[in-house]
C-alpha cells in the first residue's frame, strides 16, 4: 500500500443554504494521476477550494501526506506542497511569462528589502538562480520561446502551460489542475496528456478535474465521481465507467456548456 498523498475525511460545506459538499471522503495514493469528475455543479471546484485552503469546510479534515491542512491559510497549504491551477486561468497579466514562474519560486527565496535594495551578492545569486530555474520550467512545459512576453498577450494554450509551470515552481508534491484541457483542441490535449504523464513519471501526484473524457480515461490511474456533493463512485477508470450510478448521474443531468461547478 503506497503512502497517501492526500486524504479527505468526511468533508462537508454549505454555501448559504446549498450543500456543496455532503461528507466526502477520499484517499489519493502518492505518485498517481487522480481524476475528479462529475456533472456540473457536483462540487468539484468547491472540493479543490477546500483542499487548497480557499474555503474552510464546515466539517471534516484534509491530510496532506499525513499532515493536517484543514483551515490553514492558502499560502501555508502551498508551503506544505500543494500547488494548483485555476479553471479560469489566473496569470499575472502584466508580468512576463518568466516573471510569472519566478513568483512561484517566492517561498524558496530569502531576499528581503535590504538585500534587494543593497543588491547584495546573495540577492544577485538568488535572482540569477530563480531566473534560470524559471527558464528551465518554461522549457519543460514547452514555452521557452515566449519567456519575455507579457503573460496577458500569450495565446490561451500557452497561458495554460505557463500557469502549470508556475505551479510546478512551488516544488509541490501534489499538483491540482482545475480543467486544464478546457478550450484546447485535440492536438493541444494530447500534448497536455504527455506533459502530465511526464510529471507522474517524475514522482508527482496529480489531482485533476476534467470534463474531457478521452483525456481522463486515457490518463488517470483512479477516478472519483462526485454528484451533488457526494462521492458516488471511486476506482480505476474501467470500473467507474461501467458503474450504473455514474451513468445515471451523467444522463440524468442536462449538460450546461461552460458553466461553473
Amino acid at each position, binding site marked *: 500500500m503506497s503512502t497517501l498523498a492526500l486524504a479527505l475525511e468526511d468533508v462537508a460545506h454549505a454555501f448559504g443554504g446549498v450543500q456543496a459538499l455532503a461528507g466526502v471522503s477520499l484517499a489519493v495514493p502518492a505518485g498517481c494521476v487522480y481524476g475528479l469528475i462529475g456533472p456540473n455543479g457536483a462540487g468539484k471546484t468547491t472540493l479543490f477550494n477546500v483542499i*487548497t485552503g*480557499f474555503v474552510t469546510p464546515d466539517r471534516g479534515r484534509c491530510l496532506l501526506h499525513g499532515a493536517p491542512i484543514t483551515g490553514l*491559510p*492558502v*499560502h501555508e497549504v*502551498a*508551503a506544505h506542497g500543494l*500547488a*494548483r491551477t*485555476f479553471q479560469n486561468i*489566473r*496569470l*499575472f*497579466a*502584466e*508580468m*512576463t*511569462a*518568466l*516573471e510569472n514562474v*519566478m*513568483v*512561484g519560486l*517566492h*517561498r524558496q*527565496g530569502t*531576499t*528581503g*528589502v535590504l*538585500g*534587494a*535594495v543593497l*543588491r547584495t551578492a546573495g*540577492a544577485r545569486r*538568488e*535572482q540569477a538562480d*530563480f*531566473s534560470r530555474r524559471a*527558464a528551465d520550467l518554461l522549457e519543460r512545459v514547452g514555452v*521557452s*520561446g*515566449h*519567456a*519575455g*512576453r*507579457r503573460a496577458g*498577450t500569450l495565446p490561451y494554450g500557452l497561458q495554460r502551460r505557463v500557469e502549470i509551470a*508556475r*505551479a510546478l*515552481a*512551488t516544488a509541490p508534491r501534489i499538483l491540482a489542475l482545475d480543467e486544464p484541457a478546457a478550450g484546447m483542441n485535440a492536438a493541444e490535449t494530447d500534448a497536455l496528456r504527455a506533459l502530465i504523464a511526464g510529471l507522474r513519471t517524475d514522482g508527482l501526484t496529480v489531482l485533476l478535474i476534467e470534463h474531457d473524457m478521452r483525456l481522463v480515461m486515457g490518463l488517470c490511474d483512479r477516478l472519483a465521481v462526485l454528484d451533488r456533493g457526494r462521492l458516488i463512485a471511486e476506482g480505476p477508470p474501467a470500473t467507474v465507467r461501467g458503474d450504473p450510478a455514474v451513468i445515471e448521474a451523467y444522463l440524468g443531468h442536462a449538460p450546461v456548456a461552460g458553466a461553473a461547478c
Partner: protein
Amino acid sequence: MPEARRLRLLGLALGLAALLLAPFLVDALLGRAWVRVLDLVLLYAMLALGLNIVVGYAGLLDLGFVAFFAVGAYLYALCASPHFGLHLPFWLLLPAAALLAAAFGMLLGAPTLRLRGDYLAIVTLGFGEIIRIFLNNLNAPVNLTNGPQGITMIRPIEIAGVSLARPLEIAGLTLPSLYLYYYLFLALAALALVISARLEGSRIGRAWIAIREDEVAARACGVNTRDLKLLAFALGASFGGVAGALYASFQGFVSPESFGLTESIMILCMVVLGGMGHVRGVVIGAAILVALPEALRYTGPLQRVLFGSVYIEPSDLRLLLFGLALVLVARWRPAGLWPSPVRRRELAERHAPGGVEAGR
C-alpha cells in the same frame, strides 16, 4: 567600447549634468520662483514614489496617503520649532519621521488590508480625513498641534553647521537657499528612485505585483499576501514621512489645510498618469502635476488680456483637471501615459518583423 554602450554612458553623463545644473538653468530661463517649483517637484516625486509602492506595485488604493506626509511634517515641526522649544537635528528627525510614518502605516494596514479594494479605498480616505481633523482640533485642552493656525518658525535643515536657509559661498559661486534645498531633495529623491527600482525587480517587488495582478493566484503561489501588503504600506508611508519632514523645514510652516484630500488625489494622479508601478513615469507625472498648476497661473492675466476679465480663476481649475486626468487616463491609457519598459518592448516588437525575445 561598443557603440550602444558609449551612447548610453554619454546619455547618462548628460542627464547627470542636466540635473546638477538644473537650478541654474531654471533660474536663468524662468526666474527664481520656478526654482522653488523645481524643489517642490522633487518633494512630490518622493511622495509619488511612496504611493507608487502602495498603489502601483501592490495595487492597494490608498486615498489618504497625505496622512503620512502630515505625520512626518508635524513631527519635524514639533521637534524643530519654538512650539515645544525643541531643536533636534535633521539626521535624527528624518529617520524618525520615516519610522513614525511607517508605524502609522502599519496601524492603518493591520485591520484593513484584508478588505476588498473599494472598501480599502474608503477606509484610507477616512483615515486621511481623521488625521486632518485631529491635527485641526488637538489644540485643547492640551495644545499639541496648535490647531488651524498651524506651527510656524520651523527651523530649516542644518547640515554640518551649514543652514540651508542661507546662501552658501562655494568655489566662487553663491548658492541661494533654494539651490541648496534642491540638491538635498535631489539626493533623497534619487535615493527613493533607486530603492523603488531595485525593489521592483526583486523577489519582493514581484510578489507585490503578483498581489496587484491577482491576489488569489499570488496566495496559491505561496506568497504571504498579508505580510507583504503590510510591508508595502509601511514602506510607502515611510517615504511620505520623510517627504513631510523635508516639507516642514522647507516651508518653515505647517497647518492642517495643507494636508487634505486634494493632496492625496494629486499624488494619486501622479501615480496613475505615470503608469502604475512605472517609476520613471511617476516622476514625470509628479513634474507635470506640480508644474502645470503653476503654469496655469499665467492664464489669469491671459484671460484679462483676451477677454477683459478673469472668468475662471486658475486655482479653481486645478482639482478639476486632476479629476479629468484620472477619468481620461483610466478610460484610455490605464497603463499610464508613458509605456513601461515591458510594453515599450512589445510595441517595438510589433513593428519589427519576426523576432521574439527570450526573456530578461
